[in-house]
């Protein structure tokens, strides 16, 4: 993974902070859409798969393809309800990487960093909502 300058890392963190509220809203939407495993009171498989895909992706398009693939498997299912929102978030991250640095090689690294921060915030909020519901 490419090393980014401290200045660029700071800019990335500032961007993540500015988007935090919208990421939390997506986490809440994931709870409404996918719910959670009521038996184990654990994360839904679909949310876990999204998280795993983002964390293990070697390129940003793996994440976009995962969401499109899930949407393509079921027309009226849960991914149909939330998939467009997720893709819109990913589009924003892609655009942000282009605005944060003009160099394509660094944009590639920035996109993945943004995606990690994004999924961390979204899934944290998802888990927090579940915990609230179980209290």
């Amino acid at each position, binding site marked *: 993974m490419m090393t980014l300058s401290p200045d660029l890392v700071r800019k990335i963190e500032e961007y993540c902070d500015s988007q935090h509220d919208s990421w939390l809203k997506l986490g809440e939407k994931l709870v409404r859409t996918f719910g959670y495993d009521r038996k184990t009171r654990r994360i839904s498989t679909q949310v876990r798969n999204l998280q795993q895909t983002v964390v293990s992706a*070697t*390129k*940003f*398009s793996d994440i*976009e*393809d995962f969401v*499109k*693939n899930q*949407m*393509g498997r*079921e*027309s*009226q299912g849960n991914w*149909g309800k939330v998939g467009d929102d997720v893709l819109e978030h990913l589009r924003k991250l892609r655009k942000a990487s282009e605005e944060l640095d003009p160099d*394509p*090689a660094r944009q*590639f690294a920035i*996109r993945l960093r943004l995606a990690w921060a994004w999924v961390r915030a979204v899934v944290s909020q998802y888990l927090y909502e579940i915990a609230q519901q179980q209290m």
Partner: protein
Amino acid sequence: MNRLGLDLDRFCDDKLGEAAEQLFGKIQTGDKPPVGRTQIYGLRQIAEQGPSKVKEFAEKQGERAERRRSKGALEEKEFWRKISEFLGPEKKGTLTLEELIKQFLMPAAEALEVGAGSPEQGATTGSRPTAHQKTMLEQLKKEVIPLFFRRFCVHYCHVFRNQLFESAKRGGN
């Protein structure tokens, strides 16, 4: 990194997605998908298992569609013609995979070889491609075709998802 030391992930992220959407734009002439899910899965599978056979597969599918002369066969034939055209050889004014590779991957691959002191260095300039360049192009095509068609097929099934499900419900593929 691939065997030539190229960053194919970045190429896939930046260029193949754009190309897949462009090619999709050319084949989407209406609301109806020109080919069904089974054929798309077949295309993706062949691209992954035998990238050099995709062009031949597309041509055969096009011929089959032409023989059928049923409703939608013309659109299907057009779909396969555009896939085949995309796989080259290069044609002026047409988006081809070869052109993308030559533009974005070949210069980097050649620079890496020159840096590594390849015996072919210096032989890669000039207007006619050398045998070594042709081999390199074929090698890159083999690596890029599966990546491209994975993106293309996912995009296709995503955009046409409602129509493909309706068709499956009615007993189509």
